[in-house]
């Protein structure tokens, strides 16, 4: 068996003097789509940031594609692993055109033939070529998120960290972005680690999930647990019930009334 795409062992993460994440251990296999589920303050986004190098105060061991991670962002790492942020309105520089945003990773890594690569990537994320020289304020939320995904893919990484990529979007736009992410994973053989609070999204996107509460992982379960609610931990069961999951009365659509 090859090394896992992402591996965390006994990871504690702090901000200043407060420890926000304790004892996190999990492996994500190559090509797998893994979800970190939890409510706000559970530390799920912090885990993602620690892997990305944006939350440098951690102890334990993190490795990506078999290579141990340092505590900050570094150039070699950026070619294997990239991140998509939650808020498409905050993740694009307001004064830069889409073209500049997408060419920058290539420029930093000294990769040539940028123009062709940008056009190719725009097509891959389903954006018309007309968008290339627009500014972010001329784009809708869904289009911005497509640009953010394109930026993350410019360096052709193998591992993608997704931080609630659709929680700021409308339902119909969310569907488009989720379809896009799913297609890209299939086409490029990507590994996803996705943070979300939305269990139905996990059901659509992921193979396994780790449920976090108050900085700890309380349960790691396969996606099939969402079908029947077969969770071991009481917190997970509460979360499942609050999210509208109820094994007796299946999805609200199928039920006669709710």
């Amino acid at each position: 068996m090859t090394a896992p795409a992402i591996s965390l062992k006994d990871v504690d993460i702090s901000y200043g003097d407060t420890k926000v994440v304790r004892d996190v251990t999990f492996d994500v296999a190559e090509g797998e789509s893994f979800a970190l589920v939890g409510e706000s303050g559970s530390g799920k986004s912090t885990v993602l940031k620690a892997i990305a190098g944006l939350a440098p105060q951690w102890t334990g061991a993190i490795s990506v594609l078999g290579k141990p991670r340092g505590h900050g962002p570094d150039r070699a790492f950026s070619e294997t692993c990239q991140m998509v942020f939650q808020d498409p309105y905050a993740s694009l520089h307001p004064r830069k055109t889409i073209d500049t945003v997408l060419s920058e990773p290539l420029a930093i890594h000294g990769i040539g033939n940028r123009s062709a690569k940008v056009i190719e990537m725009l097509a891959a994320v389903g954006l018309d070529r007309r968008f290339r020289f627009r500014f972010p304020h001329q784009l809708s939320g869904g289009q911005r998120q497509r640009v953010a995904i394109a930026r993350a893919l410019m360096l052709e990484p193998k591992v993608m960290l997704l931080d609630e990529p659709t929680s700021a979007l409308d339902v119909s736009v969310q569907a488009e972005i989720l379809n896009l992410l799913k297609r890209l994973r299939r086409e490029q053989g990507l590994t996803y680690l996705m943070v979300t609070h939305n269990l139905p999204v996990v059901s659509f996107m992921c193979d396994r999930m780790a449920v976090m509460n108050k900085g700890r992982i309380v349960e790691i379960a396969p996606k099939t647990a969402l079908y029947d609610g077969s969770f071991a931990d009481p917190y997970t069961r509460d979360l499942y019930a609050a999210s509208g999951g109820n094994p007796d009365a299946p999805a609200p659509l199928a039920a006669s009334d709710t």
Partner: protein
Amino acid sequence: MSDQQAPLLEVENLRVSFATPTGPVEVVKGLSFTLGREERLGIVGESGSGKSMTGRAILRLIRTPGRQTADVLRFDGLELAAQSARQMRGIRGARISMIMQDPKFSLNPVMTIGEQIAEALKVHERLPRRDLQARVIEMLTSVRINDPERVAQMYPHEVSGGMGQRVMIAMMLIPRPQLLIADEPTSALDVSVQAQVLDLIEELVTGNGMGLILISHDLNLVARYCDRILVMNAGRVVESCAAADLHKAQHPYTQGLLAAQPRMQETRDELPVLDRTAGEST
């Protein structure tokens, strides 16, 4: 109170438009509906559908460069469009209240929670101090805050999002309004808290015989807490149905919205996507 047979709120041909350099843009295009007494109405739509503007227009809170017009905007037999700005201030809060999306931005950070709730009451009623205090504590208890005396002394930044939203509800309901407009009251909250807050709103609304307009982007949530649903798209109502009949929705837009939502027992490989080629897109 005027005659009990008339609906609580009648809206006919409500229009809201914004002046832009390229000409006026209409965001609510001729909306008509009535809200019965003690009825709970849900307005659902995606961003840009005009649902929030509708809520604000009822309270005449559209600011310049926005303009609102309506053939009828009648609340409890009172033509709101004909009220002076001063009369409107008397109605807002006292008879129609509004709960906004994020308690963080709606609470004054330098006033204690108790003072803010008391303030909401003082504006509309004159009460001796001791009664005022008692009403505040009573209200905080009714929004299920344990230890209301202590919470009344706290500042907004000291409470969690869920509790902040409950404080907002207390503030809005303490003058005992007849109509409550809740604009995305829980979208800033965690799922587990969402249900608590909505249950609370539902309980208080039915318990006090109030009307409710719940504005949200979440179809299923609105279906759970309302009697009737209006689905808005691009400033127009595309579908109006009883909440229980939502799954029988006729309009392709509503059907599209329902289908685009991932389900807990998801087996589809791809989510159906709304066709945006027709009409305005986002």
